[in-house]
């Protein structure tokens, strides 16, 4: 696993080579198209801001991976852990380097998911699971809002590319959707960067193994929100809304969490709350950055925020690793049970001191420079007057904490530890030492980090360069004075820390509401709503479900049509002929009969009337193919319904719904009926969209080699759809066959359909009832004619009305007639194959026709191919249609023969229809 360290090192070196170019203002770009139709591409751009973050991610990442390799010894599935950590690193790099907002969002969510996996790494621990889910839900919900914000932003600017957005001339402040964009984007940034009141997930996330806390939950991932704010400042910043929200939220977060951290004794909890403080401070200063035009000299709030961010990343990663090392050595990370480790762990102690110096803001450290900048900006004339005091009330407790962290575990009397305490291996202390030393070194020699990294990044965020270079050691008198006051207050706080902790505990008990409790209440509420609606809606009664579905359909249609006000008054009624009115009247009358009748035979007849009237409508309005299909299907339906209903109880003993229920069902039914009528009126009243039909009409002959446009669509243009549909048919045939296999409770011992026994029984049954001489003789002569006619229909289909569906149905009618007169066994005899095999062969033929083009000239699947053989024009669409023909025959005969054989051997309600 140690090999994984090579990846961040290589990347870090690679990013380092970019420093000279990028600090000069250059932007390095890589890109590849992803979803160019939607304006979403995997474009990566390295400017000074993203380079700063990329260096932090890879630089600290290398030490974290090294540390984790040692720290995680003894944990199960370390390979998986390393995979998650490396995945996170790459996702985080994608986040800071993405030029496309949507791609940025995707990487953002990838960090959320890897964070979830890493927090919940000890998944057998309920606390870890809860913390993982909480982090996922809080940051995920924020990210969802942010995505909406991104989409609105992209619509407003006309691009998702950050570079194009930022290059645009205008700020968005005057856009009508500006407020919505800002609120949505801020929700994403604030949840990710744990701003009050969404901060609570971050301390809980300390359930993760310590390397994760050090990397994701202090040094990198939680800074994504800050990064996003900095990134979008040139576009969205500078308004009262932006500045007000950021400063208020940042200040509350910073002061609140700094104070809370004083009351914690768990090392990781202390570090978590100070992390929240640092994030709040960065947000506060990004918000305090006044809009500047480059004229005059505005405050350097952005530089202050970035310098503080870098200082924090360095010392916090180091301190987390120190905390992990201490826990590893002593078995505890409770500050009250630690002490006297300095002698046993001198290197760790040194690293802790170095990092704490930076944390406390004591010179010479980069932390000191960061805090000096904060104070200097705070006292600048163009910032808010209370700014320095917000910083003071956040910085003083943090300095106290820094003293605690550097002294408490290491000095004083040593308690009795569970094991003998030793300095850990180099992999554990290497990271803290290097990061601590860098923090001090950059404090002494700030020229490189400031001039090469921070000031160029500041320029990117501000959108213009400052006139004067920054002099890191140049503090104003007020700032220096406040620094001294801060340190004094910190020492005082350290001295009286027991009293402070007691006071905080008392105050904390008074606060009734916390984010954590609100989260629990929300989750419990959601669960309660889910339970309630499940009880209400999922009754297990079929009619109940249908009632809900239909009532929803009717109401939503009616409300939509009413709100949209799109119902046109029908205008073309006058064109209707006597035939049209007669068909309408027939359908209406037959529908009423079906509803009211208590005779099954009458019901079947009325169904037939509706079906045939529909077929006549198709015929009258230029759809001969459809009409033919409908007529033949109607015949088959009537036959099958008649066979099956014979075996079901008639309607005489039916239990009807109660009278009020019937009335309510009627109301729902009429509502749905009227809504659908109005919908169809609205649809047919609006102008048609002729593009598709015109395309098919234009290309049927040149592209599809056919003159029956319907058939050309079915077997050529949309052959893939048809292939799907005949597959569904085949599945239905298989399902019916499976249903007809003898069931568990079958008492009569019915043999499975298709077996010799079933055939013999059915045959015997037939022989007893079907002995009409005229019918037998007619059938014997008619069936061959029907079969020949079906082939004729199949072959002419591409030019004239006909085709595989109709042909197959006609052939099925022929076989069915034979089966009715001579018995199913005889029909199987003339078919000479199991109908299931015929259906499967049909599917195979249809599929094979699709590959001909692929093999001949690598055309896509189901591209039509045409050629002439012996003067006969042949094409793969015809072959496809033969497949359709066979599938239809196979499936319909599976139905008919299976049902006949099954029903023949079954006793049933042999009553009246």
């Amino acid at each position: 696993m140690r090999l994984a360290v090579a990846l961040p090192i290589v990347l870090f070196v690679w990013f380092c080579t970019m420093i000279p170019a990028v600090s000069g203002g250059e932007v390095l770009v890589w890109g590849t198209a992803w979803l160019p139709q939607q304006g979403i591409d995997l474009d990566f751009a390295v400017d000074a801001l993203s380079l700063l973050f990329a260096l932090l991610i890879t630089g600290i990442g290398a030490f974290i991976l090294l540390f984790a390799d040692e720290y995680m010894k003894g944990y199960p599935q370390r390979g998986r852990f390393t995979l998650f950590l490396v995945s996170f690193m790459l996702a985080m790099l994608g986040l800071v380097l993405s030029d496309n907002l949507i791609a940025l969002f995707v990487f953002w969510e990838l960090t959320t998911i890897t964070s979830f996996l890493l927090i919940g790494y000890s998944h057998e621990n309920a606390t870890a699971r809860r913390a993982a889910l909480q982090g996922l839900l809080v940051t995920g919900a924020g990210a969802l809002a942010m995505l909406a914000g991104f989409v609105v932003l992209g619509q407003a600017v006309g691009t998702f590319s950050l570079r194009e957005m930022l290059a645009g001339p205008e700020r968005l402040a005057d856009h009508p959707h500006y407020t919505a964009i800002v609120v949505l984007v801020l929700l994403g940034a604030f949840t990710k960067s744990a701003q009050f009141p969404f901060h609570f997930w971050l301390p809980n996330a300390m359930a993760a193994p310590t390397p994760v806390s050090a990397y994701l939950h202090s040094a990198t991932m939680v800074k994504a929100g800050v990064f996003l704010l900095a990134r979008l400042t040139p576009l969205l910043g500078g308004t009262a809304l932006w500045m007000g929200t950021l400063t208020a939220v940042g200040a509350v977060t910073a002061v609140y969490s700094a104070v809370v951290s004083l009351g914690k004794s768990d090392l990781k909890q202390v570090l978590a709350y100070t992390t929240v403080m640092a994030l709040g401070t960065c947000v506060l200063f990004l918000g305090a950055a006044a809009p500047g035009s480059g004229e005059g000299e505005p405050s350097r709030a952005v530089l202050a925020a970035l310098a503080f961010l870098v200082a924090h990343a360095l010392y916090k990663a180091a301190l987390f690793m120190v905390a992990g090392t201490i826990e590893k050595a002593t078995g505890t990370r409770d500050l009250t049970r630690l002490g006297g480790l300095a002698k046993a762990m001198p290197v760790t102690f040194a690293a802790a001191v170095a990092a704490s110096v930076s944390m406390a803001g004591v010179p010479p450290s980069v932390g000191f420079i960061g805090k000096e900048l904060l104070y200097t900006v705070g006292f600048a004339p163009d910032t808010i007057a209370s700014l320095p005091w917000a910083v003071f009330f956040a910085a003083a407790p943090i300095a106290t904490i820094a003293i605690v962290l550097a002294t408490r575990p290491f000095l004083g009397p040593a308690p009795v530890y569970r094991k003998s305490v030793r300095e850990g291996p180099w992999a554990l202390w290497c990271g803290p030492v290097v990061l601590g030393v860098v923090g001090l070194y950059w404090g002494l020699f700030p020229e490189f980090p400031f001039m090469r990294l921070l000031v160029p990044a500041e320029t990117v965020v501000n959108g213009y360069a400052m006139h004067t270079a920054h002099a890191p050691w140049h503090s104003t008198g007020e700032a220096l004075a406040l620094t001294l006051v801060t340190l004094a207050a910190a020492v005082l706080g350290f001295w009286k820390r027991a009293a402070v902790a007691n006071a905080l505990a008392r105050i904390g008990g008074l606060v009734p509401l916390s984010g954590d409790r609100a989260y629990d209440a929300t989750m419990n509420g959601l669960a309660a709503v889910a339970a309630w609606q499940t009880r209400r809606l999922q009754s297990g009664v079929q009619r109940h479900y249908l009632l809900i579905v239909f009532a929803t359909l009717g109401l939503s249609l009616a409300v939509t049509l009413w709100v949209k006000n799109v119902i046109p008054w029908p205008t073309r009624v006058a064109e209707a002929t006597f035939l049209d009115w007669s068909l309408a009247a027939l359908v209406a009358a037959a529908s009423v009969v079906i509803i009211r009748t208590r005779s099954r035979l009458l019901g079947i007849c009325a169904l037939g009337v509706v079906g045939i009237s529909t077929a006549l409508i198709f015929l009258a309005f230029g759809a001969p193919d459809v009409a033919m299909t409908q007529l033949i299907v109607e015949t088959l339906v009537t036959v099958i319904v008649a066979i099956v209903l014979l075996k079901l109880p008639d309607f005489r003993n039916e239990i009807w719904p109660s009278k009020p229920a019937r009335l309510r069902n009627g109301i729902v039914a009429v509502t749905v009926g009227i809504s659908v009528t109005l919908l169809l009126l609205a649809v047919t009243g609006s102008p048609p969209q002729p593009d598709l039909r015109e395309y098919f009409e234009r290309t049927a002959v040149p592209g599809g080699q056919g003159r029956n446009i319907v058939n050309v669509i079915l077997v050529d243009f949309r052959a893939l759809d048809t292939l799907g549909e005949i597959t569904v048919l085949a599945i239905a045939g298989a399902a019916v066959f499976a249903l007809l296999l003898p069931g568990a409770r079958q008492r009569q011992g019915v043999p499975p359909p298709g077996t010799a026994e079933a055939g013999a029984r059915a045959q015997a049954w037939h022989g007893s009832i079907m002995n009409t001489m005229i019918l037998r003789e007619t059938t014997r002569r008619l069936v061959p004619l029907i079969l020949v006619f079906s082939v004729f229909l199949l072959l002419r289909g591409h030019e004239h009305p006909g085709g595989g569906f109709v042909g197959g149905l006609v052939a099925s009618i022929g076989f069915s007639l034979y089966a009715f007169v001579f018995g199913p066994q005889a029909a199987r005899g003339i078919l000479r194959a199991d109908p299931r095999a015929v259906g499967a062969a049909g599917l195979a033929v249809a599929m094979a026709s699709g590959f001909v083009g692929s093999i001949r000239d690598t055309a896509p699947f189901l591209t039509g191919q045409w050629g002439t053989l012996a003067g006969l024009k042949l094409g793969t669409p015809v072959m496809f249609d033969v497949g359709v023909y066979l599938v239809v025959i196979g499936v319909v005969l599976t139905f008919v023969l299976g049902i006949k054989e099954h029903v023949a051997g079954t006793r049933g309600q042999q009553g009246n229809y």
Partner: protein
Amino acid sequence: MEPIVAVIVGVLMAATVYLMLSRNFVRFIFGLALLSHAANLVIFASGGMTRGRPPLIAPGASAPPPDISNAVPQALILTAIVISFSLLTFALVLAFRTYQELETVDTDRMRAAEPTSAGADAGQRAVG
């Protein structure tokens, strides 16, 4: 003709809903049959209806005359008819086999998968 078809579809839909809400599985299947007719007519009317001019191209011509009926909904309906036929058959056989196994066609009494519980009873009372 489209407004008349719209009314026909409304009548068919109302009949469908009413039949499907009854307790008898056989009536439910009648409703299913009507539903497919209604759906096919909706598709047909949505594409615009043209009297008596099938979407065929005369021999020798490369394109049809301009005022033929729309072939797209016809292609959709043609497969829909066959598929709804197979669905109807499946439902019928299912009803038949259910009756053989459970000896009832009353959907309220088909409770093998979801045995009656307090919540279900409430639901049953609610639907009458």
